[in-house]
C-alpha cells in the first residue's frame, strides 16, 4: 500500500516533469487502481498531492524566468468560482459517471499529447 502510493507519486511526478502534463492524470487512476480509493476520494486526494509537485515545479520554472507572476495570481484568483462549481459537480455525479468522464478526459489528454509531439 505504502509502496504503491510512493510508486504512483514518483511515476506521476516524473511524467509531469518529462512531458509537462499535470500529475493528476496519473495520480487519479493510480489511486483508483493501486490504492483502492473510489473515484470521488481519488479526485479529491489527487488535488492535495498536486500541491507540493506544483510548488516545486514553479520554483524551478521561476529560475528560468518562465513564470508571469501577475497573470498566475490572476488565473488563480479567477479559478475559485470554477473550482467550486467543478467540485460540486464532481460530488453530485455518481461514481461510475465521474469515472467514465475521467476516462474520456484521459483519452483527450492522450490525443493532445500525440498531436503536440507530432507538431514539434
Amino acid at each position: 500500500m505504502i509502496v504503491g502510493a510512493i510508486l504512483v507519486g514518483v511515476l506521476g511526478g516524473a511524467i509531469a516533469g518529462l512531458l509537462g502534463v499535470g500529475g493528476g492524470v496519473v495520480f487519479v487512476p493510480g489511486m483508483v487502481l493501486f490504492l483502492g480509493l473510489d473515484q470521488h476520494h481519488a479526485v479529491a486526494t489527487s488535488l492535495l498531492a498536486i500541491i507540493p509537485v506544483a510548488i516545486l515545479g514553479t520554483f524551478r520554472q521561476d529560475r528560468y524566468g518562465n513564470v508571469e507572476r501577475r497573470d498566475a495570481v490572476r488565473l488563480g484568483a479567477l479559478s475559485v468560482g470554477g473550482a467550486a462549481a467543478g467540485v460540486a459537480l464532481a460530488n453530485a455525479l455518481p461514481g461510475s459517471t465521474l469515472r467514465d468522464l475521467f476516462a474520456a478526459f484521459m483519452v483527450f489528454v492522450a490525443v493532445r499529447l500525440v498531436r503536440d509531439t507530432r507538431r514539434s
Partner: protein
Amino acid sequence: MIGTLAGLFSGLFGVGGGTVMVPLLVLWLAYDERPATGTSLAAIIAIASFAAAIQALYGNVKVVDGLLVGIPGMAGVMAGTWLQQRVPSHAIAYLFALVLVATAVELVLQ
C-alpha cells in the same frame, strides 16, 4: 475565462488544470510554450489548493494517501526534468499516450 475553465476542470477531475490552461494561454494570450507552462504551474498551486480545500469540506480528501503520493511526486518531478534533457521525449510521449488510453479502458471496464 481561462481561470474559470481551469478551475472547473480541476475541481471536476482532480487535476491541476494545466491541460486546459497551457493551450489557452498560447492561443488567447499569445504566450510562448515555456512561459505558458511555468505560469500555468504557478496558477495550479492556487487552483489545486482551493479545490482541495473545498473537497476537504465534503470530507473526501484522504490526507495520508495524498501526502504519500505528493511528496514522492516531488522526487519524480526532479527525476523527470533531469531525464528530459537526456532521453528522446517523443518516444516517451507516444508511450505515455498509449498507457493513458489503455488505463482509460481499464477504468471503464473495471
